[in-house]
C-alpha cells in the first residue's frame, strides 16, 4: 500500500539544514518539504529555490498549517521553546542536537511530546554510524570483558561554516565545545558504557564559551577515563575503550573500528556493516542524515519508538549540565601564571 507523503517543515536555514536535512529529504520518497522558515527570508528563499520547496516564511507558527512534522535546526537556546510550542500544536519534531541547553528544558519537551502523543526525535546522527552500532553490540555482548578504561579525543581546528555568531555567544549557544560537539561524543559514550557516577571537568572559558575542555569520568561499571574536546586542535577523533580481554578503538566521525587483544599485538581493523552485503562502507557526514530521517518518518508512520528518543538525549544533556555546574579552570600551556590567576577571578 502506498503511504501518503509526510509534510515536513524545516525551521532554521543554516548550514546543517542546507547540507544535512534538505539533501536527505530530497532523497526520501516518503516525505516532502513544504515549508522553510528562517528569520532571513532571502536565505530561506535561496534554499527553497534549490530544493523546490513551495513556501517560505519568517514565522515558525505557520508550520502547523503547512506540515505534519518539523525539523528544528535553530540556535541552541531556541530548541526547547520552539519544540514545545510545535509539539503542543500537534507536530512531530526532529530537533537538532543539543536537544536543549538544560535538563529541565529536555524534560519539558519530553512531557509535551508524551501528552500530545507525537514523535520527538533528536538529531544525534552518530548513532547511525555503523561502527558506533558495532561497538554498542560488542560491549553489550561482553566481547572485551569488564571495561576498565576509556580515552576519548575529539577535535579539529574549527571549520564549521557558521552563518551567524550564535555559536559563540553564551546566551544563544548555551555553551561551547562541550555542549556542541560533546552532545555527540558523550551521547555515544553513555550509550556504550552506561551512566557516570562521578566527574571532574575543566575548560578554558573566561566568561565566554569554551573552545577546549577535559572531562574525567567514572562510570557506574567502574570504568574510568578521560574525554578531551577541542575547537582549536586537530585531535585523533577516536574513542579507545579498554577491557580486561582487549580494546576497541572507534572513530567518532566515520565508519572505522579496530579491535585489539589485551597485549595490543593481535588485532583487526576495518569498517562495520549493518546489512547482509557484508561490506563495510565509509559513511560521510551527509550520509548520516538519510537514515536519521528514515527512522523518524518510520516512527511516525508505524507508531514505533525512534532510534534516538528524547529520553536518550537527556542523559548527555544532564551530564553536560553537571559539568558546567562543577567546572574548574583549565590553564592552557601558554597562559602565564599571572594570567592564570586573573583567569580564576574572571571565570
Amino acid at each position, binding site marked *: 500500500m502506498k503511504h501518503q507523503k509526510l509534510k515536513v517543515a524545516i525551521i532554521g536555514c543554516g548550514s546543517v539544514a542546507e547540507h544535512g536535512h534538505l539533501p536527505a529529504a530530497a532523497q526520501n520518497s516518503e516525505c516532502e518539504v513544504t515549508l522553510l522558515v528562517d528569520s532571513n527570508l532571502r536565505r530561506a528563499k535561496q534554499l527553497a529555490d534549490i530544493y523546490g520547496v513551495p513556501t517560505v516564511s519568517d514565522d515558525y507558527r505557520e508550520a502547523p498549517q503547512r506540515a505534519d512534522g518539523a525539523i528544528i535546526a535553530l540556535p541552541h537556546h531556541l530548541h526547547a521553546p520552539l519544540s514545545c510550542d510545535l509539539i503542543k500544536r500537534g507536530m512531530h519534531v526532529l530537533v537538532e542536537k543539543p536537544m536543549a541547553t538544560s535538563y529541565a528544558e529536555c524534560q519539558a519537551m519530553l512531557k509535551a511530546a508524551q501528552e500530545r502523543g507525537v514523535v520527538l526525535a533528536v538529531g544525534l546522527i552518530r548513532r547511525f554510524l555503523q561502527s558506533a552500532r558495532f561497538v554498542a553490540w560488542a560491549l553489550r555482548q561482553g566481547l572485551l570483558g569488564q571495561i576498565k578504561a576509556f580515552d576519548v579525543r575529539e577535535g579539529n581546528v574549527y*571549520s564549521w561554516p557558521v552563518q551567524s555568531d550564535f555559536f559563540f555567544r553564551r546566551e544563544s549557544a548555551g555553551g561551547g565545545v562541550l555542549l556542541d560537539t560533546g552532545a555527540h561524543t558523550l551521547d555515544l559514550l553513555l550509550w556504550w558504557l552506561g551512566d557516570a557516577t562521578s566527574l571532574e571537568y575543566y575548560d578554558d572559558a573566561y566568561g565566554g564559551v569554551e573552545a577546549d575542555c577535559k572531562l574525567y569520568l567514572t562510570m557506574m561499571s567502574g570504568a574510568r577515563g578521560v574525554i578531551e574536546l577541542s575547537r582549536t586542535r586537530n585531535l*585523533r577523533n577516536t574513542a579507545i575503550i579498554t577491557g580486561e580481554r582487549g580494546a576497541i578503538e572507534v572513530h567518532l566521525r566515520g565508519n*572505522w573500528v579496530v579491535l585489539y587483544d589485551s597485549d595490543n599485538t593481535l588485532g583487526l581493523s576495518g569498517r562495520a556493516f549493518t546489512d547482509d552485503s557484508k561490506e563495510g562502507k565509509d559513511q560521510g557526514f551527509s550520509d548520516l542524515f538519510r537514515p536519521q530521517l528514515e527512522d523518524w518518518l518510520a516512527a511516525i508512520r508505524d507508531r514505533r519508538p525512534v532510534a534516538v528518543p528524547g529520553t536518550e538525549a537527556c542523559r548527555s544533556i544532564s551530564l553536560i549540565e553537571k559539568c558546567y555546574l562543577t567546572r574548574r579552570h583549565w590553564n592552557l600551556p601558554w597562559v602565564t601564571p599571572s594570567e592564570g590567576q*586573573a583567569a580564576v577571578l574572571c571565570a
Partner: protein
Amino acid sequence: MRLNAKKVLVTGGTGFIGGRLVEKLMLEHNAAVRVLVRNFTRAPRIARFDIQMFPGEILDGPAVETASKGCDVIFHCAYDFGGVQKDRKRSNVDGTENVARAALKNGSRVVHVSTVNVYGWPLDGILEETCPKSPGADIYSQTKFAAEQVMWRYHRQHALPLVIVQPTIVYGPFSRPWTLAVLERLKSNQAMLIDQGEGVCNAAYIDDVVDGLILGATEPRAIGEEFLLSGPDYITWKEFYAGLENLIGRKGTVSISFEEAQRLASAVPSLGRRVIRAAKESSILRSAYKKSRVFLPEKMKERVTAAIANIDGNTNGGVHSMNGKHIIEPLDRSRLDLYRTRCRVKIDKARRLLGYEPRFNFERGISVTGQFLRWAALVPTNGDAWGENMVERRPNCWEMGDAFSS
C-alpha cells in the same frame, strides 16, 4: 600603565597576534574588548572571553566605524593573506585607511601592526628604526609598507595619534608562518637551510610582541613613533629550526648554499611560483593542495611535488629533501634574503621610549611553544613517540565542516 576598563578595538583579533593580544587584554588588563570579525569560523579562541564581536571586515568602512565607536585604542592587527595581488592591496591598504579614518573620527589612538620587512633585509649590520625603508618585492612587504604610508599620512595631515610597531620573526603558540608551517615542513623533510643556517634569525616570542603592542597603547611618548620589536637574544636559523626539530625528535632540514638556492629560484620561473602561491592562496585550490599532500599515495605525491618544481618544463632546478623523496619548493628572493642576512635588529628605541623588555629568550620561548605543540598533539609527548594522541595514525574521516568544502 594598564588598559583597565578602557574600550579597545582589535582588528585581526581572530588571528595569531590579535588572538593573543585579546587574551592578554582580557586577562591582564580587564579591558573592554571589541573585535571586528570577518569570519566567525575563526572565532573559537577569542569567544572564550566576554568580549563584543562585531561582524565585518576592514574594507567595510561603516562596519569599522561601528565597531570602533567610543574606543580609546584601536589595535590594527588585521592582515588579509587571501586573494590575488590586486585584492590584497585593496583589502590591506584601503582597509587600513578605513581604520585610520574611524580612529580619527573617534579620537582613538592607533597601534598599527606592521613588520620588520618594510626595511628589507640588508646582508649584514644593525637594523634600527633610522634605517632606510626598502621593502622586498613580495606582496606582503609591499602592502605592509603601503599601509604604513597611509597611517603616516593620517598622522601628519590629521594628527592621528599613531604608534607603529614592526615585529620581527614572531613565533609561538598558533603562529602559522613561524611555528606550525615550519613544523609541517620539518615533518615532511622539506625545510631548507641556507648556508648551513648560519644567518641570523631575529626571533621574537609572541608574548613579548604583544607586550610591546600594549606598551605602544599606553606610553605617552610613543605617539608618532615606530618601534622594532624583537626578542632579547640573537640566534641562527639553524638554532631556530633545531628548536623545533628537537620537539619532533629528528632532523627535518636540508642545507643548501645561497647560490644554489638562488639558482633554483631563478630556474623555477616567477610564473611557476605564482601558480604555486595562487594554488595555496585560493581557498578551493589550497584545500586541494593541502589534501593532496596528506591523502595522495606517496608515489603520486612525489609526482605532484616534482610537477610543481618542474613547471614550465624546467627540470634542472629541484632540490631533494634529506630523505630524497621530495623536491623542495624554491624560496623567493625576499625569503632568501631573510635566511641569509647576518643583520641584527636593535630594540633600543622600544626599550628607551616604551620600557619594552622582552622576557622570553629563545630557550624559554621554544619551551612554551613545545608545551603548546604537545598539547595540540602536533609533536609527541614524552614516552609517546607518535603514539596514542597523534592524529597521523588514524584514518582521515570527515571533519566538522568538511561537507562544505567538497
